[in-house]
């Protein structure tokens, strides 16, 4: 299995919450675990460039995304992340297809048909996103991220609202994308089985600090 080097070594302060992480490792998929409010989403946002660490370095697959001492802080649009945020955040004024295709401008990686087929989006394609069910929205968000030809996938509880059968199929598909297109990923989930299935590195957080890391 392919692996890439990860450097998640930074400090980030928001309100009274401080996130401190100092991890350097090789992996294909990292999973972030930990109780509510432990800092998982904060880490994904920092990788995507949507929140800014006070200090440190973020590097994935030899691409430096942030480095305080070098003065590097790539804008989000140059970070080539495929982000499925926890709050889903579909563009409410666009159709499902409009959402899915939004990121394709930078060159398409995963073939559209297979993404749409596997995420069972076809029948929804022309619908307005505010007429979708919770699970349908999440699938669209996953498709949108996959279609944006990312160098790294950031998935924040992407299957929380998806039913168990589909969850299974989608997990398999995401693993396939990772392995065939060699896209590393960072995966956040509360479901222990998912985590074990998908990640070869698990980082356990609590109150903004790393409690343990495991190699699966």
């Amino acid at each position: 299995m392919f692996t890439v080097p990860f450097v998640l070594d930074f400090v980030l302060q928001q309100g009274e919450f401080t996130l401190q992480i100092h991890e350097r490792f090789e992996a294909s998929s990292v999973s972030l675990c930990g109780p509510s409010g432990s800092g998982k989403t904060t880490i994904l946002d920092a990788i995507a460039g949507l929140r800014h660490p006070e200090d440190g370095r973020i590097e994935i697959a030899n691409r430096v995304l942030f480095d305080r001492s070098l003065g590097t802080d790539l804008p989000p649009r140059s970070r080539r992340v495929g982000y499925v945020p926890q709050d889903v955040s579909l563009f409410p004024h666009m159709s499902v297809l409009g959402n899915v295709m939004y990121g394709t401008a930078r060159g398409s990686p995963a073939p559209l048909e297979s993404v749409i087929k596997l995420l069972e989006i076809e029948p929804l394609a022309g619908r307005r996103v505010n007429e979708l069910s919770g699970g349908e929205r999440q699938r669209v968000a996953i498709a949108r991220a996959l279609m944006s030809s990312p160098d790294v996938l950031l998935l924040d509880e992407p299957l929380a609202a998806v039913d168990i059968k589909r969850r299974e199929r989608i997990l398999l598909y995401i693993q396939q994308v990772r392995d065939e297109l060699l896209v590393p990923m960072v995966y956040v989930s509360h479901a222990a089985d998912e985590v074990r299935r998908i990640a070869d590195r698990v980082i356990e957080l609590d109150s903004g600090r790393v409690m343990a890391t495991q190699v699966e």
Partner: protein
Amino acid sequence: MPGDLVDVTLFSVAMAGLSTVLMLVPGLALAWLFARHTFPGQSVLETVVSLPLVLPPVAIGLILLRFLGRYGPGGQLLDEIGVDVIFTWKAVVVAMTVMGLPLLVRSARAGFEHVDRRYEQIAETLGASPVRIFLTISLPLAARGVLAGVVLGFSRALGEFGATIMIAGSLPGTRTLSTAIYTSTQTGRDTEATIMLLTAASIAFVAVFVSNRLATVE
């Protein structure tokens, strides 16, 4: 008069429409700037933009006349490039644009402020450039505010009188519904004035109707 009325009406609508179009680029740029950024001197710039609303139109007309008149800096520039503005249809457009702009800016700005930044951020992670984000995310999500601004700007342009009569006069080639209504009321041609008022009201009705249609489409 009937033929004249048609001419004046078409001319007014065309000028107000053109002014609205001209307002759009600077208006939306300023609205965006004020909504999404803070910078030194912002309040001063905002005040300057809002002045045409706060000062009586006659005063704005006077300021424009001084500026664009033969002895003003703008006028001398225009003279050099050989463009005649004062007392031509272009002056009508200038007056309407200046008077409508503050309404567009304020309203569109509120629209942008209502847009959740999260959408702009997600679009950025998908590789969209700032311009693309503006055009495909911020602007459509701010559509209600922007539309309100456009309607207000257009309506104001149509109703503009004080600044128009000052810099464009009320000539066959610059007469708008508003200046014509003024002349009619001044000379006691009440029927004529009433007809023109009803015409202006009808245009307003069409504008309201179209804007409501647009709002439900989007």
